[in-house]
């Protein structure tokens, strides 16, 4: 084992894990604010369901407004710093706080759990080790640090070394990959901020997948803080 480990060390010597992780984390939030339109398609063995929503983000705060399907049109969700969520249900004219645990099932049986949706940066909650690397992509094994609550035993993230964008995340439970997120069609949003236009999450235990297509992406457009408040949700009435 030792010679192989040494060889791997020599081969990957030019990849500094901490630096790669920091650059990728920084790129994930290299904006003051962000807005985009997302089309979500949930594919369950060929049977599909579609939802469309606008997302506004500033720091850790997010405001999501549903455009489709008709049953959900007008519904809005506010996610505050710290993870508190409030939902506005137009047909009931009510704003309610919703707190879910990490494993809570995603909307429309999507393959994104609360934890998956919330994890855009990894350095704070995970210990990283290098799995392998080429001159274009580095693969890092991320193990949750003590105190980090996670439904996964570990993740293997692939980082594009050109733009420092996370392009793939594999989720492991009991040593087996259970889900795989693939981010593709990377686009330049600002001079130094790159984002995927398509995100595919596959459930590796069953024929089920969710695709997010991101359109109308705009960064640093000066979103007001007042958008990210309960009052803004109530104004949806």
């Amino acid at each position, binding site marked *: 084992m030792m010679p192989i480990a040494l060889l791997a060390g020599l081969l990957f010597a030019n990849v500094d894990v901490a630096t790669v992780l920091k650059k990728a984390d920084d790129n994930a939030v290299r904006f003051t604010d962000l807005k985009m339109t997302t089309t979500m398609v949930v594919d*369950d*063995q060929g049977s599909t369901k579609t939802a469309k929503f606008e997302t506004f983000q500033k720091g850790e705060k997010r405001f999501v407004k549903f455009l489709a*399907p*008709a*049953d*959900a049109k007008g*519904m809005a969700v506010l996610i505050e710093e710290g993870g508190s969520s*409030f*939902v506005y*249900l*137009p*047909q*009931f004219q*009510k704003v*309610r*706080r*919703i*707190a*879910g*645990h990490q*494993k*809570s*099932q995603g*909307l*429309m*049986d999507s393959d994104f759990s609360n934890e998956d949706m919330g994890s855009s940066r990894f350095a704070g909650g995970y210990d990283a080790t290098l799995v392998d690397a080429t001159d274009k992509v580095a693969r890092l094994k991320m193990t949750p640090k003590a105190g980090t609550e996670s439904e996964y035993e570990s993740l293997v993230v692939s980082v594009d070394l050109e733009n420092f964008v996370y392009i793939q995340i594999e989720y492991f*439970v*009991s040593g*087996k990959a*259970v889900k795989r997120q693939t981010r593709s069609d990377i686009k330049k949003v600002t001079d130094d901020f790159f984002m995927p236009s398509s995100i595919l999450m596959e459930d590796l*235990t*069953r024929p*089920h997948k969710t695709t997010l297509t991101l359109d109308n992406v705009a960064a640093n457009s000066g979103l007001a803080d007042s958008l990210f408040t309960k009052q803004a949700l109530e104004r949806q009435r």
Partner: protein
Amino acid sequence: MRAWLRYVIWLSLIVVAFGAGRFLVHSPQSLTETTGLAAVDAMTATAKRFALADAALWVVDGGPAGLFRPDALRELAGQTKGLGKTRLCRSVIAITELDDPVSTDEGTEVVPLIPEIPSSDAAMQMLRARVLSRADLVDQLVSSDGQRALVICLLQRPQAEMTWVPASPRLTQWTRVDARATAAMLGGDLQLSAVLMAALALPLMLLLQMYEKRYMRRFSVWGALSLGVMVILSSVVTWRSMLMARDGFATVLGGRAFYAARQLDLVTKTSTTALVTVTGDFTTSSGLRSLEQTCAELGAHGSVACPTDVLRRAASALTGDAVLPATDEQAKQLWFLLGDRPELSLLFTQDRQHALLRLRGKFAAVPGGTKLPASLASLYAISRALRSLVASGLLLAVAGCVAAAWLGRRFKWGSFPLATAFAVTAFACPVAMLSLALLTLSAWTVFASLAATSITMKDLE
């Protein structure tokens, strides 16, 4: 009679007895849907509609001390998590896997029903009280005494790993909630009867040979032929049962499936539960209210687990009020938020046009006109007791046969009446077993027919 011909007959009979059931087990692809009993067909349709046909069920027994102990709960949680990680289940439904939305004035907090295994007795008692206070779970996923829990595994398709059986001795063998499990049970028992007959054949042949020598008559040929008729009859019924069963594996379980059905009954009271399909448009407010009205009407015939309870709980969690949606738009929004939660597939079809009611009671007069014998549970117990008696009778017959053969050889005596009495006893046992099995089958047919009773809104208007 030539010796070789006699051996060929015996060998054929034994091969038929042992092989009849096994043929289809090794050729599962040859299993077809039943086209026979209409009631079983109807039950199958109900099961398919509500994902019951694609569910494997486990009963976890916590023993006399109950499930609400750290080690028992830990084991249950371990098993359900383990199941969830296999490719066998697309979803696992059990008390250890469920969320518990807690509604407050401000909003809703969705927490796991069992967030962690309590370490203190007081905390464990609080958890027990919390779980057993959930009316939608008691007698569905956990027995009212807190001793047993039901684990439902919604199977992946294709079902490539159907032979997976958990290793834990606390888990009973899996079975299905539909009538096919019963057919499988009978198939297994009848298959067993063929095996017993084959076992009986050897000492019987010894005895008949003894009389053949003494009286110079060909008893053994006639004995073999009469036994052969029974074996063939039994094998045909076994084969028929296996056609009705979902797969050969379930059939092979035989008595175990019966035991599993009993265990299931202890948790969910299935023997006194009718599954009633209600048809309507449940995406609308009026459809949901009609469904609730149906539940109320059926309430006169027993206790009803109404699917609208789930919507009330959801409404309570999301809006603070445990009321059904007042408008169609509210109903649609609620359905959108509920999405495709696996537990919903057991209550509503995906198009929300059918709902499944669980009616528990004595069913004196269920709309639709089908009646279920109130003593079905007793019949179940009686049939089991009789079956034990039959098995004991067979064993006694075998023992008597061996004893008679030994005594006959030892003291060189015997009588034709003795041989006749023995033969009658020996053949009566399988006949009794067969009759009993058919009797149980007819009782279950009535049950299946009731269980599959489909009531449309039109019927009730």
